[in-house]
């Protein structure tokens, strides 16, 4: 047992010295993941790692396995390894705060990756979630309809995101609504964001308005599928623009076919890339508020003002369908199934 402990200590010492060697060559960027069981984090990691290693720096990571205690220990370990920047995907955004204080005390830089914790010295980097709603509405105004009868198919009433999205949407449409250009003719929550429930709601909306619907704002792609099916039954699919989000494969195909206007896409690889770049810059001594794209953010629960990089999601329409195909998110064959030749540039 004693021998075993010695062996471990020796191993730790060696890895520490190795880390020091790496430190001598370049900087070390660490990530403390909250859990690695969800598939999406692997995409994020690949993107961060690629940026860090391309800059000649070293990437190390720990997995808290869904435990706040383990995450605290992980971060202590990382500080001991003398890393330069620690990206933290917090499991518990309050319990993490003492650990963040330790990072600050050690003179290292902390980045809140995707999950916010409220520490004024840290950088917060995430997708602009409120912006998704604004982006849907903006794309509708720019590429769909600016006036007429609008239907709003909202998500589940128990999910706060459904309301956040709606607030963002209304913010953008408000001007045209107040001017009487846009009329809100139906507005309904959808049980469990279910596509078949959205289909029924849309059918009733069409019946109530004698098909006099000019545009549909659906809060995600699944429901947009139900909406398009209901429109299709009335021969209106393709002539009434429909919004969505998530970058669902079926939805991207509908975008190519022209039955859906837009699918707002949050590409976690972009998030990873931006975070990697910010980490490398911070490690090289760039001040937080001098980072590209940084702004102030104080919409957290406690209202602490932080430096934040909010990444705008990418609204995928017919015009930039290439982004998802070139990015390897969806194959060209899947995106372009059934699309008439020459109608969409990305499918040629």
């Amino acid at each position: 047992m004693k021998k075993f402990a010695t062996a471990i200590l020796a191993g730790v010492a060696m890895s520490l010295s190795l880390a020091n060697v790496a430190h001598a060559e370049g900087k070390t960027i660490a990530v403390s993941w909250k859990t690695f069981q969800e598939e999406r984090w692997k995409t994020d990691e690949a993107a961060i790692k690629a940026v860090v290693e391309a800059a000649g720096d070293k990437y190390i990571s720990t997995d808290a396995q869904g435990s706040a205690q383990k995450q605290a220990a992980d971060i202590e370990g990382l500080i001991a390894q003398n890393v330069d920047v620690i990206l933290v995907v917090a499991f518990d955004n309050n319990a993490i705060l003492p650990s963040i204080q330790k990072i600050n005390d050690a003179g290292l830089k902390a980045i809140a990756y995707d999950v916010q914790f409220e520490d004024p010295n840290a950088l917060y980097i995430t997708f602009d979630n409120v912006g998704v709603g604004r982006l849907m509405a903006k794309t509708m105004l720019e590429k769909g309809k600016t006036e007429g009868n609008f239907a709003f198919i909202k998500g589940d009433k128990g999910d706060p995101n459904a309301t956040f999205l709606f607030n963002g949407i209304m913010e953008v449409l408000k001007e045209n609504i107040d001017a009487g250009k846009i009329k809100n003719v139906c507005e309904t929550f959808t049980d469990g964001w279910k596509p078949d429930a959205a289909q029924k709601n849309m059918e009733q909306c069409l019946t109530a308005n004698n098909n006099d619907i000019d545009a549909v704002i659906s809060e995600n792609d699944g429901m947009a599928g139900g909406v398009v099916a209901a429109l299709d039954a009335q021969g209106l699919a393709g002539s009434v623009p429909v919004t969505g989000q998530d970058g669902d494969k079926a939805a991207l195909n509908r975008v190519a076919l022209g039955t859906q206007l837009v699918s707002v896409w949050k590409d976690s690889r972009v998030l990873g890339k931006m975070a990697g770049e910010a980490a490398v810059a911070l490690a090289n001594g760039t001040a937080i508020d001098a980072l590209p794209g940084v702004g102030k953010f104080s919409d957290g629960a406690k209202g602490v003002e932080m430096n934040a990089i909010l990444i705008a999601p990418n609204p995928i329409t017919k015009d930039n369908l290439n982004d998802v195909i070139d990015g390897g998110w969806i194959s060209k064959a899947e995106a372009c199934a059934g699309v008439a030749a020459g109608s969409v540039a990305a499918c040629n």
Partner: protein
Amino acid sequence: MSSATETSQNPAMADEGPITRFFRATEIDTRMLGMVAALLVIWAGFDIYSGMLRPNEGLFGGSFLTPRNLWTLTVQTSSIAIMSTGMVLLIVMRQLDLSVGSMLSTIAVATGVLQVFWLGPSLGVGNEWIWIIAVLFALVLGALIGAFNGFLTAYAGIPAFIVTLGGLIAYSGIAWALIRGETVAPMDKTFKLIGGNGPLASIGPFWSWMLAFAACALLVMGLINGRRQRQRVNFPQRPIWAETFLAACGGIAILGITAVVNSYPWPPKVIETYAKENGIVIPAGIEDRAGNAICMAGEAVVRCANGLVYYTGYAIPVLICLAVGFVMSFVASRTRFGRYVYAAGGNPEAAELSGINTRWLTMKVFMLMGVLVAISAIVTSARLDAATNSLGQFNELYVIAAVVIGGTALAGGVGTIYGAMLGALLMQSLQSGMTLLNFESAYKDMVVGAVLVTAVFVDQVYRRRVK
């Protein structure tokens, strides 16, 4: 036929009032009559209310009692109604299936994966075998899952509530894992027609009328046959006037419903596309925005009163639903299997002692439930033209609610197929109607929940009175 056997002339009943005598003579289920009346009141209420918000061409000036809305309503109801017919038998047998919603999503996703990722590439997209293979696959899969539930309940002795509660959780996991939460789309072109999404997925006025006439003939034959049977075993018969009255009412109902679905015109855009695709010439005419037909005013296609127009008729899923209802009613009331189900539900011990193999019977009923869920899975995924793991979520609640509103006692032994189907129609009417009126969804949930409890309460009061 001897008049002494006619019920109305039985001296013991001479002192009854005319209304009681009428119901006794016609043997009409007054409970069902009450439900139909409630349904009609709700419909009229929605129509009047929606008319006050926005006048339309409904019976009372609203948009609820229009052929279009009633047609949509029947399509929206069919999936739950199909499943409710099986749930009636289960609940009558003192069993329950909580897993129908998750089963539906599993079957829908598996069938979707089969047609989109396997059959499409191997047979070629649009091959006419795809839908046949997909439908058979779904039915077999449904029967297998049902058999699994049934086996665990009947032979392993685990209570159905637990088995299917486990199924509710586990099958939804399977549905997610099969495609990792993605959406499978689009479905095969022919398969899609089963969903009845849009007028092209219905049989048209001619065949609708033919079916209606056939149904009327069947009704009359059924009445005559029933009378002969009663005569043969010397059973009291309905008076001739009552038989005629039933035939007339049934006939009027069948023809009336058919007339309604046949007067739902295709949406103008659909007519236009259809005409273009099939090289049909759109006649010239004068624009009339209220018209149902389309015509050419110069170069533009416009709506007009006289021009090219088609009517829908019965939607395919509604026909499937009616056929299922007919077959299930027959099975429940006219076959040995059906009688055993009611016997086993009324008194399991007595049924067992009288030689009914109740375990095998339980397993068969669960399998039947599985097949019905598969039919619903086909209808729902075909209608959405996509399959996802969220399809069918919460359906177990709606199915059980429909069955209970339809008068099936949770204690077992009592329940009718048509009652459950009417229950499904009532629930969907409430939901569709409130959506039509743009009700907030929290209020919708409150109303539906309250109606469920009220229906059972009224039912109990009614049963006590009758006794």
